[in-house]
C-alpha cells in the first residue's frame, strides 16, 4: 500500500491533480461566454433552465438475453418496478448480422443479449408493450437500419404513429472501428447507411434519435476521460459532416443526434467531462457548421456507469461503485441513465441484481436532494478548471484528427485505436504496480468469498431460435423475400435511400442475416489489421 504522503494524486485517467484550486485556477473563465445560465449557450451548465425540477432523467436499464420471449418478460418486470424507458441488448449474432444457423453464431445465440432474427422476433420482444407511449433505445450498430426497420413495422402493426414515435438507435459505426469492433462493412459504406437513416427520419420519424454517438465503448476499451470526450465528439463532427455532404440541411438532422457517455469512477473528472462535452458541442455546431437552431447546439446524452470498473472479486462492492458513478452522471446533467448490476463482471444480471441497480437510481432521484439544484458544481474552482482542461485536450485531438483528413481517415490509419490501446496498457501497469488501488482486487483482498448466484444462459435459447428460423423459412413467401433482397442489392449499388428497401424486406420477413448478406454482396466486409 503506498504511504499517505506518496499517495497518487492523479485521476483514474492519469491526470495530475493539484492539492487546492483557487480563483487563479479559473482566471481566464468568463461566465457569459464559457458558462452561462442553464438553458443558455454554450450550455455548460445544462440544456434545461430548470434541470431535474422540470423532468427527471429517464431510468433506462439495458437488458436482453436468450429468446425474445425471455427478454419480453424481463422488460415487463423492469417497467413494473418503475423503469421509465426500455433499452435493448442484442446478442452477438444479431449485432454482427448473422442468422442463428450461421457457423460463427454457434454457441453465441442469446448469450450476450437477446436474439432477434426477423420481424417475428421483434413482434414477440414488444408483445404487450405499447410502442406509441414507451421510448426504446436499441444498442445496434452495423445492422441498425435493419433492426430499426423491424421496430417501425411492429409500431405500425400496433397502430402507433411514426411521426410521434420516440426512441434511439445507437447506429454509431465509428466507435465500432475505434473500440468495440462490431463492424460489418467498410467505413464509407457504413457511413452511407447512417446518412440514409438521417434523411429518412428527418422526413418520416422526426422525433427519433437517429444516432447515439458513443464514448462509452471507447472508455471501456481503455481510453482516458479526455480521449473519450475527444474521440466521441470528433465522431459526432464526422457524422454531421457526412450528413451535410450528403446534401442535408444541418438543422434538419442535427437536433436528432444524441450522445452516450461512460460515467467512470473519478467523480469530479466525470462531472467536468459532461460539462465540457456540452460546451464543445454547442460551439462546434454553431461555429463550425453554422447551425442556427438551438436544438442543434444542445448536446443531449445518456450515461452508463463503467462496466470496466466492476470487479468479479467481492461483487457487492460494485453496488457502491455504481451508486457513486451514477451520482456523477446526475451531477453532470445526464438526460438518461443506466446503472450496472453488481454481478456484471461475472455474467448478465439476475432479475434481483437488475432491480437493485434500478433502485440505486431511484434512491439518488428521490432521497438525496441532488435533483433540486441545477449544476450544483458550477463555479467550483476545481470542477471549472477540470472542465476547461478537458475541453482544451479534446480540441487538441480535434486538430490532430482534422489534420489527418477526418475521423474516417484517422481510423483507417489506426490512430484512435493505438491511442486507446496505449492508455489501456498504462492503466493495467499502474494497477499492477499498485499505484492505483482497486478495492478487493489488489488491496483489501478477502480469501474464501462466498459465490453469488448468477444468471447462466445455456444452449436452449440457441436451439429455440434455430427451430423458429426453420419454421419461418417454411411459412413465409420466399419469392417475395428474394425480390425484396434483389431490390435492396440494386438500391445499395446506386444511391437510393436504403431504409424503404429494408422496410419492404422486413415486411416480407427477411432475416437479419439475409439482409446483411445482401449488402455484403455489394459492399464487402471490413477486416481489421491485427496489431498489438
Amino acid at each position, binding site marked *: 500500500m503506498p504511504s499517505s504522503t506518496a499517495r497518487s494524486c492523479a485521476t483514474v485517467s492519469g491526470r495530475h491533480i493539484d492539492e487546492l484550486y483557487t480563483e487563479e485556477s479559473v482566471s481566464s473563465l468568463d461566465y457569459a461566454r464559457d458558462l452561462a445560465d442553464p438553458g443558455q449557450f454554450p450550455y455548460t451548465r445544462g440544456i434545461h433552465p430548470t434541470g431535474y425540477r422540470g423532468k427527471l432523467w429517464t431510468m433506462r436499464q439495458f437488458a436482453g438475453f436468450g429468446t425474445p420471449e425471455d427478454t419480453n418478460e424481463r422488460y415487463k418486470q423492469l417497467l413494473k418496478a418503475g423503469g421509465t424507458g426500455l433499452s435493448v441488448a442484442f446478442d*452477438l*449474432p444479431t*449485432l*454482427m448480422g*448473422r442468422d442463428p444457423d450461421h*457457423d*460463427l*453464431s*454457434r*454457441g*453465441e445465440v442469446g*448469450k*450476450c443479449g437477446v436474439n432477434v432474427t426477423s420481424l417475428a422476433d421483434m413482434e414477440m420482444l414488444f408483445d404487450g408493450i405499447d410502442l406509441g407511449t414507451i421510448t426504446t433505445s436499441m444498442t445496434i450498430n452495423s445492422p441498425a437500419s435493419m433492426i430499426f426497420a423491424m421496430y417501425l413495422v411492429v409500431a405500425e402493426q400496433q397502430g402507433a404513429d411514426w411521426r410521434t414515435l420516440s426512441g434511439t438507435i445507437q447506429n454509431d459505426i465509428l466507435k*465500432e472501428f475505434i473500440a*468495440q*469492433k*462490431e*463492424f460489418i462493412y467498410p467505413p464509407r459504406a457504413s457511413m452511407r447507411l447512417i446518412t440514409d437513416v438521417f434523411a429518412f427520419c428527418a422526413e418520416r420519424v422526426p422525433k427519433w434519435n437517429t444516432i447515439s454517438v458513443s464514448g462509452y465503448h471507447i472508455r*471501456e*476499451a*481503455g481510453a482516458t476521460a479526455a480521449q473519450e470526450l475527444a474521440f466521441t465528439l470528433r465522431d459526432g463532427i464526422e457524422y454531421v459532416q457526412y450528413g451535410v455532404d450528403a446534401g442535408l440541411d444541418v438543422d434538419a438532422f442535427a437536433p436528432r443526434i444524441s450522445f452516450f457517455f461512460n460515467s467512470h469512477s473519478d467523480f469530479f473528472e466525470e462531472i467536468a467531462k459532461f460539462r465540457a462535452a456540452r460546451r464543445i458541442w454547442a460551439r462546434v455546431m454553431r461555429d463550425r457548421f453554422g447551425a442556427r437552431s438551438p436544438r442543434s447546439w444542445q448536446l443531449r446524452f445518456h450515461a452508463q456507469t463503467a462496466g*470496466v470498473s466492476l*470487479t*468479479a*472479486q467481492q461483487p457487492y462492492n460494485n453496488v457502491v461503485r455504481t451508486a457513486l458513478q451514477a451520482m456523477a452522471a446526475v451531477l453532470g446533467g445526464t438526460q438518461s441513465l443506466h446503472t450496472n448490476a453488481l454481478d456484471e*463482471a*461475472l*455474467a448478465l444480471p439476475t432479475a434481483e441484481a437488475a432491480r437493485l441497480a434500478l433502485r440505486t437510481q431511484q434512491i439518488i432521484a428521490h432521497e438525496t436532494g441532488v435533483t433540486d439544484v441545477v449544476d450544483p458544481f458550477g463555479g467550483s474552482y476545481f470542477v471549472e478548471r477540470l472542465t476547461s482542461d478537458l475541453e482544451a485536450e479534446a480540441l487538441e485531438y480535434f486538430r490532430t484528427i482534422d489534420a489527418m483528413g477526418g475521423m474516417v481517415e484517422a481510423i483507417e490509419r489506426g490512430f484512435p485505436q493505438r491511442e486507446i*490501446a496505449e492508455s*489501456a*496498457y498504462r492503466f*493495467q501497469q499502474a*494497477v*499492477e504496480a499498485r499505484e492505483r488501488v*482497486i478495492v478487493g*482486487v*489488489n488491496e483489501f483482498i478477502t480469501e474464501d468469498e462466498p*459465490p453469488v448466484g*448468477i444468471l*447462466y*444462459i445455456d444452449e436452449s435459447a440457441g436451439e429455440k431460435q434455430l427451430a423458429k428460423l426453420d419454421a419461418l423459412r417454411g411459412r413465409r413467401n420466399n419469392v417475395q423475400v428474394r425480390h425484396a433482397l434483389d431490390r435492396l442489392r440494386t438500391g445499395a449499388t446506386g444511391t437510393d435511400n436504403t431504409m424503404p428497401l429494408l422496410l419492404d424486406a422486413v415486411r416480407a420477413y427477411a432475416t437479419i442475416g439475409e439482409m446483411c448478406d445482401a449488402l455484403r454482396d455489394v459492399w464487402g466486409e471490413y*477486416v*481489421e*489489421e*491485427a*496489431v*498489438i
Partner: protein
Amino acid sequence: MPTIRVVIAKPGLDGHDRGAKVIARALRDAGMEVIYTGLRQTPEQIVAAALQEDADVIGLSILSGAHMHICPRIMELLRERGMDDVMVVVGGIIPDVDIPKLNAIGITGIFLPGTPMQAVVEFITRHARDRAALSESSGANR
C-alpha cells in the same frame, strides 16, 4: 531455454479486444514471442495459426459466453493434428460451474477478471518449461 511462442486469439463474434491486447503486450514485454491473430477467428483458423507459428501456447480471450462451444472444439482439433503438447489457456468471463469442465478437457490455465498480468506470465513460463522438460525426457520432438 528457447523463447516461448504464444498465439493470442480472439475466437467467436465478440470484438472486445482490450484484454487480448493487454495480455499480448504483457507477454511480449516478458520476453515471449507473441502472435496476435486478430478478431473472429474460428477454432480451425486458431489451430492452423498455432501449427504455422510452431506455438508452445495458445491463449484464448473469450468474454461472450461461447467458451463451452469453442474450447472443446480447439482441444479436439489439436488432438487430431497431434499437437497435444500445445498448452491452451483461457482468459475472460467463465462461470465457476464451467471451470471443472474446462479442466477435464485439458485446460488448466483459466484466468478470470482481475487476474494480474504477472500471474499469467508466471503461469505460462512455469508450465511451458515443464512441458519442454517433459518432451525432452521422453525423447519427443516437434
